[in-house]
């Protein structure tokens, strides 16, 4: 959690937007994930959000659904994902890594064991899209006990009270859903986004990162100063999926992340 806070603080000081890169663990192969994480970090990703695949990812659109299914087909689990993080740490990756995953695989692993193992592996926090604050007490207690982050969400339709509750409960950073709907590349950002970001900003000082539909440098540039961070997922996975081989996939990550990074300043 310290690493997450430090990253957001440093970037605030530099007046740069923190770039969060979402990668599905085990996509397309478990053996490539550490390499893709390294490539993203070397190209300028400040935070890695590593997705633990689930059979029924209700918050995800077709792109991330497909990567998750491919990862499951090759045997990617929560345990294997923790190993990936440990390997990434051994390979010298120092950027914060948060695990993104739906409740059930985490519950099945067992929350006590999960948070303990996550801390040992070098994980910095958790992002659980089907866990609203009202269901999050037990998870938060584990996060606190292990000094890990726990990210909650705001949505465009969230009331002021709910935004405040999510911001107050979040440890590390708050995830600001830029749009209704599931994950996926969107051509334009919502016209009402600025006003919504101001409402979130007013709710407190927890670092906020905007995700859903962020895919182009123009999106990132237009959000400068309006949010602490941006999250890119589907666009990155699409780029990975379009490449032909492992080297091409690393290059695809480097290419997209560098161009997005340039837009954070």
């Amino acid at each position, binding site marked *: 959690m310290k690493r997450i806070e430090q990253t957001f603080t440093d970037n605030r000081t530099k007046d740069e937007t923190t770039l969060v890169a979402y990668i599905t663990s085990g996509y397309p192969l478990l053996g490539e994930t550490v390499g893709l994480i390294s490539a993203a970090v070397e190209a300028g990703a400040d935070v890695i959000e590593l997705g633990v695949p689930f*059979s*029924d990812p*209700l918050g995800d659109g077709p792109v991330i659904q497909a990567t998750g299914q491919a990862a499951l087909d090759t045997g990617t*689990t929560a345990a294997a994902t923790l190993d990936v993080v440990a390997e990434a740490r051994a390979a010298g990756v120092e950027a914060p890594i948060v695990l993104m995953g739906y409740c059930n*695989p985490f519950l099945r692993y067992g929350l006590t064991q999960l948070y303990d193992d996550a801390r040992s592996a070098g994980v910095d926090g958790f992002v659980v899209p089907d*866990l609203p604050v009202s*269901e999050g007490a037990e998870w938060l207690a584990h996060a606190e006990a292990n000094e890990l982050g726990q990210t909650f969400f705001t*949505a465009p339709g*969230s009331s002021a009270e709910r935004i405040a509750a999510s911001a107050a409960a979040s440890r590390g950073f708050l995830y600001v859903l830029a749009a*209704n709907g599931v994950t996926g590349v969107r051509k334009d950002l919502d016209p009402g986004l600025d006003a919504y970001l101001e409402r979130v900003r007013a709710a407190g000082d927890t670092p906020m990162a905007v995700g859903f539909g962020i895919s182009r440098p123009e999106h990132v540039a237009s959000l400068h100063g309006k949010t602490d961070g941006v999250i890119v997922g589907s666009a990155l996975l699409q780029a990975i999926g379009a490449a032909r081989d492992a080297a091409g996939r690393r290059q695809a990550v480097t290419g997209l992340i560098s161009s997005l990074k340039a837009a954070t300043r």
Partner: protein
Amino acid sequence: MNGRFGEYGGQFVAETLVGPLQELEEEYQKALLDPEFTAELDKLLKMFVGRPTPITELHRLGATENGVKLWLKREDLTHTGAHKINNSIGQALLARRLGKKQIIAETGAGQHGVAVAAACAYLGLEATVYMGRVDAERQAPNVQRMELLGARVELVDLGTATLKDAINAAIREWIARPDTTHYLLGSVVGPHPFPTIVRNFQSVIGREARAQFLEENDRLPDAVVACVGGGSNAAGMFSAFLDDPVRLVGVQAAGEGKGGQCGHAAPLLYGDPGVLQGTRTYLLQDDDGQIQLTHSIAPGLDYAGVGPEHSHYKDTGKVEYISASDNEALDAFVALSSQEGILPALESAHAVAGALKVARQCAPGSTVLVNLSGRGDKDLTSAMAALKQREENAR
């Protein structure tokens, strides 16, 4: 309403849906206190749905089992042919109060989809129904009915292309348009407040059946039996008997009848607690928490989860959960048709098959009340094919 059934239930959803769920709960609470709402619901249940549905005494089926008397609650006689319409009409009225004209729904057997289509047509709402492609094939007549009733049917190819996948598709659509759309969930599953709202709209089954049974028999039945897919017909039926000295039995789909983790749809018998589609409940899942493939000949029962209230009743022992296999359901489908002149839905045939098992354990002269949740016209093609296959396999 707190949305918990013991340690089950809850609201494990994307933040995007928390507001709309809260709005739904508040509107529902208001509606319950509004005499106009309850009067309109009662009127529609009577004049559109065709309630009350009768109870029917059986004369042959079950009589050989210890001289036990079986009675059926005839939800198959409702308009559109299954209990699903009780909930659809109620929620459609709620949607109208919420000012939401767009209705989305999932369907497995197609019965909920048909009920939603009919309710929406009658009340002037627009319906889109998500249905797994596999289910659409095995329940083709219901797809035609939905379309004729003015609904748009969206086929879902994800996963096993059955009920769970249709629910996923509907929830994703709801997340995209929460402000203008009402998700008319068809069973006592999903996030709070759905399990409570759907059960309450279905409780009319139990209320009627209990009073009718008392009227005919001057006593309560010894056992009440219903099939459990998501568990709405069972929850509605059982709700009237929870304080009575009556054995309550839910029948899940044993599919191929081999138990274990696959080849069936009986999470209450073989599953473990987990979180799926917004609720904590018993699930069929693997060691990594991935949801398992299910199988049942009855599409309405072919689901890896179950309503959280049933999970609670399982743990507390309030309700016993047993199962009936594809084969046993087919036998009951044929027996009820040929011996009693009533063609049950394959889902409801599981309840009948389960009731025959219960009857075998009852003292002579006992009575068993079975909720016949729907009629079987939709199943003719797939049931006849399965019967033929069975004959060929036996040769």
